[in-house]
């Protein structure tokens, strides 16, 4: 199918505008249109996956149109093994978001669906852009719908949270843009491939690395620029939290893989300990922070930061592996782990936020103390919640296990201590997640409100069921995912290990 990527980007955006045009009065039609568009987008990722050639690291489904001839900037798209899974994840996660908002969103629903659909298109744009300027264009444009989603449909402190979110991300991005411009002036165009091939001195690489890292670290988010995330997650409506956790955080990780490692390999090697240290702090310190949270959403938000620490750890530990073993053999495993961890965390954190949303819709509280004994009134829900919680702790058989296991093995090749420290998270993760489950799901019925709870309706069952299947599928049989990524990861290792000096 020609222009498949363009269709994936513009179909949801066009549908979003159509929903907006239908308005709140015809919201019944708008809702179905939104659902149809998100399902159609998901369906279109099937041919994308099916026709993807897993033997090459080259960009596939490439499209290239002149966009701004003056800057040599192109409307250039293409996918490889690291963007394809993320595009599929984006399309997959938007469907539950649309369904989850079905009856819950009462104020300005047309704008709600429009915002999510437009954002879906823009996010797919971020993952498929093969021109840095186009990438930045989508990357920044995406902030607008998210800003509105948190600000309009969010909780009591939504204004503070959304402005903090916007300014944090904007600050990071602006310096990424200046780095892009600097490289453009040297390379002559904005193509990501030419930026990757651009020879740079070590001091140039250092500054570029830091500028890019500012943007990506905020998005991931890495300690110490993570403070926007708990606020944004807690205040965002359920759908907003899901997209934020499942997709937007992945853009930081994607950025590291797509830009930082190949563009500034020598600076990455030089500064890898910085990233590894920050990742380990995220894994351990944030794990402890998660332990003491009283608010379910905040707890999951902190758990997200800890889990994303594995992504950055897996991406940068490759330099230590090469330094320790003098071979690139094991390095790919770190990147494999980082990628699987991103997909898996997207599914699990999205699912957990949806679970919290299910409870919140009924009880209108996110405080752990207001719950207890949910299993007595909502057995089906409790099953799902326990499954996702176990996946979050990295139980074998779920997707959470694969990513963390790969990263820990890879770290082991670099140093025992990295692996040991990273493995602490398995314990900590189990502590805060299982303790959450114990307090919310199990025990005696805590209050009349819990006693009056009704179990999942079919709509919620379908959503959580689909996610559960995905979590188990990736956990039990990650081979297809790893196979899709394999040549690209291999190529990335070569790029990241090579020196530009």
């Amino acid at each position, binding site marked *: 199918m020609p222009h498949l990527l363009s269709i994936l980007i513009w179909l949801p955006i066009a549908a979003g505008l159509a929903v907006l045009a239908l308005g709140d009065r015809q919201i019944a039609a708008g809702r179905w249109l939104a659902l149809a568009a998100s399902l159609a987008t998901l369906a279109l990722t099937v041919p994308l996956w099916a026709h993807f050639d897993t033997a090459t690291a080259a960009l596939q489904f490439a499209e290239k149109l002149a966009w701004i001839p003056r800057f040599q900037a192109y409307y250039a798209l293409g996918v490889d093994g690291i963007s394809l899974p993320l595009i599929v994840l984006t399309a997959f996660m938007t469907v539950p978001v649309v369904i989850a908002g079905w009856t819950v969103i009462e104020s300005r629903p047309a704008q709600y669906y429009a915002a999510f659909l437009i954002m879906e298109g823009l996010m797919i744009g971020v993952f498929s852009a093969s021109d840095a300027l186009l990438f930045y264009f989508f990357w*920044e*444009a995406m902030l*607008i719908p998210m800003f509105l989603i948190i*600000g309009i449909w969010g909780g009591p402190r939504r204004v503070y949270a959304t402005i903090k979110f916007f*300014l944090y991300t904007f600050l990071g991005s*602006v310096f990424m843009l200046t780095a892009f411009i600097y490289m*453009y002036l040297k390379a002559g165009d904005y193509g990501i491939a030419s930026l990757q091939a651009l020879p740079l001195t070590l001091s140039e690489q250092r500054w570029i690395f830091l500028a890019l890292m500012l943007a990506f670290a905020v998005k991931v988010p890495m300690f110490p620029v993570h403070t926007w995330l708990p606020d944004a997650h807690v205040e965002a409506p359920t759908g907003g939290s899901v997209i934020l956790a499942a997709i937007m955080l992945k853009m930081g990780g994607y950025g590291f893989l797509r830009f930082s490692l190949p563009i500034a390999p020598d600076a990455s090697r030089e500064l890898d300990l910085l990233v590894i240290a920050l990742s380990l702090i995220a894994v351990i310190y944030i794990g402890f922070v998660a332990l003491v949270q009283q608010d379910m959403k905040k707890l999951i938000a902190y758990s997200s930061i800890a889990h994303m620490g594995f992504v950055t750890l897996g991406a940068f530990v490759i330099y230590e592996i090469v330094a320790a073993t003098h071979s690139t053999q094991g390095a790919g495993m770190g990147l494999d782990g980082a990628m699987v961890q991103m997909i898996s965390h997207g599914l699990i954190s999205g699912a957990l936020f949806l679970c919290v949303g299910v409870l919140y819709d009924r009880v209108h509280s996110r405080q752990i103390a207001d719950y207890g004994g949910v299993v007595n009134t909502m057995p089906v829900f409790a099953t799902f919640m326990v499954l996702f919680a176990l996946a979050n702790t990295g139980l074998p058989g779920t997707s959470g296990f694969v990513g963390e296991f790969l990263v820990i093995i890879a770290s082991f090749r670099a140093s025992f201590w990295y692996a040991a420290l990273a493995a602490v998270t398995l314990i900590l993760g189990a502590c805060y997640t299982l303790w959450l489950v114990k307090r919310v799901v199990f025990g005696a019925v805590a209050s009349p409100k819990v006693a009056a709870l009704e179990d999942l309706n079919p709509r919620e069952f379908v959503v959580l069921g689909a996610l559960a299947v995905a979590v188990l599928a990736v956990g039990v049989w990650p081979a297809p995912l790893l196979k899709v990524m394999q040549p690209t990861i291999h190529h990335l290792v070569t790029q990241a290990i090579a020196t530009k000096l």
Partner: protein
Amino acid sequence: MSSPSFAPATPEIWLTCAVCIVLLAEVFAGERRRGLTPTLTLLALALGAALTVQYGQVAQRTLLFDGLYIADELSWVLKLAGFLIVAVALLYSRSYLENRGILRGEYYVLALTALLGIFVLASANSLLTLYLGVELLALSVYAMVAFDRDSGVAAESAMKYFVLGAIASGTLLYGMSVIYGLTGTLDLGEIAARLNGPLTPGLILGLTFIVVAVAFKLGAVPFHMWLPDVYEGAPTSVTLFIGTAPKLAYFALTLRLLTYGLAGAVGEWSQMLAGLAVLTLVVGNVVAIVQTNLKRMLAYSTIANVGFIVLGFVAGTPEGYSAALYYTLVYVLVALGSFGVILLASRKGFEADRLEDYRGLQQRDPLLAAAMMVLMFSTAGVPPFVGFWAKLRIFQVLWESHHLWLVVIAAAMSVVGAYYYLRVIKLMYFDPPPETLPPTARSAGVRFALGLNAAAVLALGVLPGPLLDLCARLIH
């Protein structure tokens, strides 16, 4: 010199005629037919634009009137843009003027003479012509600020504007006289040729005065004091006028005077401008945060944007000037819409100039709120809106001319700036609408124009190529 054809001066000639026609029409139409003048003015502007397209274009740089007047593609485009911007500004203003009982012919005549001043500036090739344009524009605008004669605030602003403006004009004139004394000519091309040698203290003296005057006209810190007071105090329709078309003229003033006439001293004035730009960016953005009045906030936002325009000149290259031109055009397009929103939100006896007047606007008037949101995101420099490309261009030319620190400061300040634009969106979208606010204006034509204005900001943001190319072509 070739046989003098006055065709390139068609815009000025026609505009002078139009001023007379509108003035006379107002006299003969009398009190009863108030609607005549606005319509006639819009027709005159449309016809002027058509005549300019037909006759005003020149194949290459042409000098007229003994070298006092220059016609090139840049002046042609600036004049066409001037016609369009003034027409849109007057279109937005009409019901506002009507509601306040100041819909008089003189207002339109003054707008046309101000436009004439802009044209003279755009085509000036001599210090004399430049000064003529500056004064024609300034005097018309002073009168417009004071137009609502029963308003004490407006009178105060006009007085402030006039006194400070007169000082700036004096400064400009003094600087020009020094340059004239050093070179013995008023012709910009001749000045450039004769200033080829080493810099003398006298030249630096003259240059300093000229840079101060230019900074004053642009509204660069520390010569910005008039700007917030005038923007706030003037009737909103006049603020809209001052905030848009004259920016093109002052861009032309800076371009012709500094980069053409005083090209030899580029090292000196670009350093002076760099200092001004940094101050302007910081003061404009930081002070805008604490404003509670939207007009005053937009005034400080103007100052902040002027900082970016000046940065284009700091680069000291044709690329830089074309970036400044692009930024100016984009800024004018966005300012036109933002002040247009204020005009549409105003009613009789209600100015809609406080920020809190915009609370819940999204639920009261979705179109107006959406347009304002687009304009605010654009000024903040967020894609997919055109303001992003304007900032990108400035960053680019600063990198090219190795102004690392200016890039960093400009980038940091654009993040600071984003805060107060977001606050406007927060008020419109996140806050519930209060019940006491009057409804917004419902005139379909004007709303359509505003919708087009916002759509242009989006369209030029998605496909920025043509305008970027145009700006690069205009400045070789």
